[in-house]
């Protein structure tokens, strides 16, 4: 079973929930930090590094001697990585999304495979034996989905080899990185807070993820702050409210020290164990359908 922990708004508690779920999960699980732009799950799981591999994207390199300036590649590219202007073919490898189309379409074989470094894919293991996977985007790299693709390949290979469930800590927002992170999930768990921003971005997330047809559930963090409009929204849309994390100073302090919330006290442990049961019930039903 694969669960993606996502949100529209950043800072709602995705990583808090992900780390706690991993710590109380009942079956062997792989914890994946898919927020490659600013990975932070390791601050809580504190895994020891097992491997660290650079990841690359195949990008075109022009052999000027072979190019006949037909412009087929420039016309094909949707991202302006290749441009034919004023009798010059210009290649901008930074702009390339790595589809490989230009190299296939070139009748002269003038575009060869080069590489752009995307970042690194890191594997680790926690003191409790939970395997962890994360991507870390190279500083200056503009696109995160290609690196996320490399993390996803590794994720599927590792999880199927060792029969692991998967928890994906997704990046915030509703654009390409967030969609990329949730696409493998059997179920999407949306973390929000009962504030106007929380509600606004929960609505965006619901709108963005709904077409994927995956079951969704909601966790309200900082419950007691703000108002009850998030609950009303969930009722209206038929989104099950699966857990609430209260707005308490001791929780914030525990978090600030890098603590796993499920370890704070018996109440929090019970909250997350109950959440795991709910996810098993909803996500498991999909998995075995």
């Amino acid at each position: 079973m694969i669960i993606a922990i996502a949100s529209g708004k950043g800072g709602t508690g995705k990583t808090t929930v992900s780390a706690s779920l991993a710590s109380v999960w009942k079956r062997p699980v792989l914890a994946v930090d898919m927020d490659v732009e600013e990975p932070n799950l390791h601050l809580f799981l504190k895994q020891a590094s097992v491997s660290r591999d650079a990841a690359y994207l195949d990008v075109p390199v022009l052999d000027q001697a072979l190019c006949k300036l037909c412009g087929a590649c420039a016309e094909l590219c949707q991202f302006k990585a290749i441009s034919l202007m004023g009798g010059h073919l210009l290649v901008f490898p930074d702009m390339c999304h790595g589809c490989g189309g230009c190299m296939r379409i070139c009748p002269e074989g003038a575009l060869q495979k080069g590489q752009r470094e995307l970042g690194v894919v890191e594997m680790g293991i926690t003191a409790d034996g939970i395997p962890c996977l994360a991507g870390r985007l190279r500083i200056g790299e503009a696109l995160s989905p290609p690196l996320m693709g490399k993390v996803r390949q590794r994720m599927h290979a590792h999880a199927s080899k060792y029969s692991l469930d998967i928890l994906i800590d997704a990046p915030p927002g509703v654009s390409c990185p967030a969609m990329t992170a949730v696409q493998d999930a059997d179920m999407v768990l949306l973390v929000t807070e009962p504030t106007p921003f929380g509600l606004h971005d929960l609505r965006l997330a619901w709108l963005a993820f709904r077409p994927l047809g995956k079951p969704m559930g909601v966790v309200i963090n900082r419950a007691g702050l703000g108002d009850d409009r998030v609950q009303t929204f969930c009722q209206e849309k038929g989104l099950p409210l699966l857990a609430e994390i209260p707005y308490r100073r001791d929780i914030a302090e525990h978090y600030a020290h890098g603590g796993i919330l499920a370890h704070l006290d018996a109440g929090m442990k019970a909250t997350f164990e109950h959440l795991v049961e709910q996810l098993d019930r909803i996500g498991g039903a999909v998995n075995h359908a």
Partner: protein
Amino acid sequence: MTAAPIHKIAITSEGPSLADPVDARFGRAGGFVMVDLESMATTYVDNGSSQVLAQGAGIQAAENLVKAGAQALLTGHVGPKAWTALQATGVKVVQGVENMTVGEAVTKFKAGLFAFSDAPSR
């Protein structure tokens, strides 16, 4: 670069005429007022095809400019990729042109008050 005399220049503009304000942006400029320095005849090249791009607006704008036959560009700022494209195609660039009308920019250019840039803006 060639030392051919410049007779056709482009100015990034918020509108189609010499009375419109210079658009300080290059890639996302509204359009280019093309000026023939001998006859002072102007034409307008719309840059909407660059404005709608999620990425690569500067490169697309450079394509539009080269297609229109500009030999020099007056604008606010040119980014590194557009700079590479304009350099490769031999278009000379004046940066820092803003807060004036297109007509004022042309007058200052003809009076020799502008210097060509040798590097892109960040």
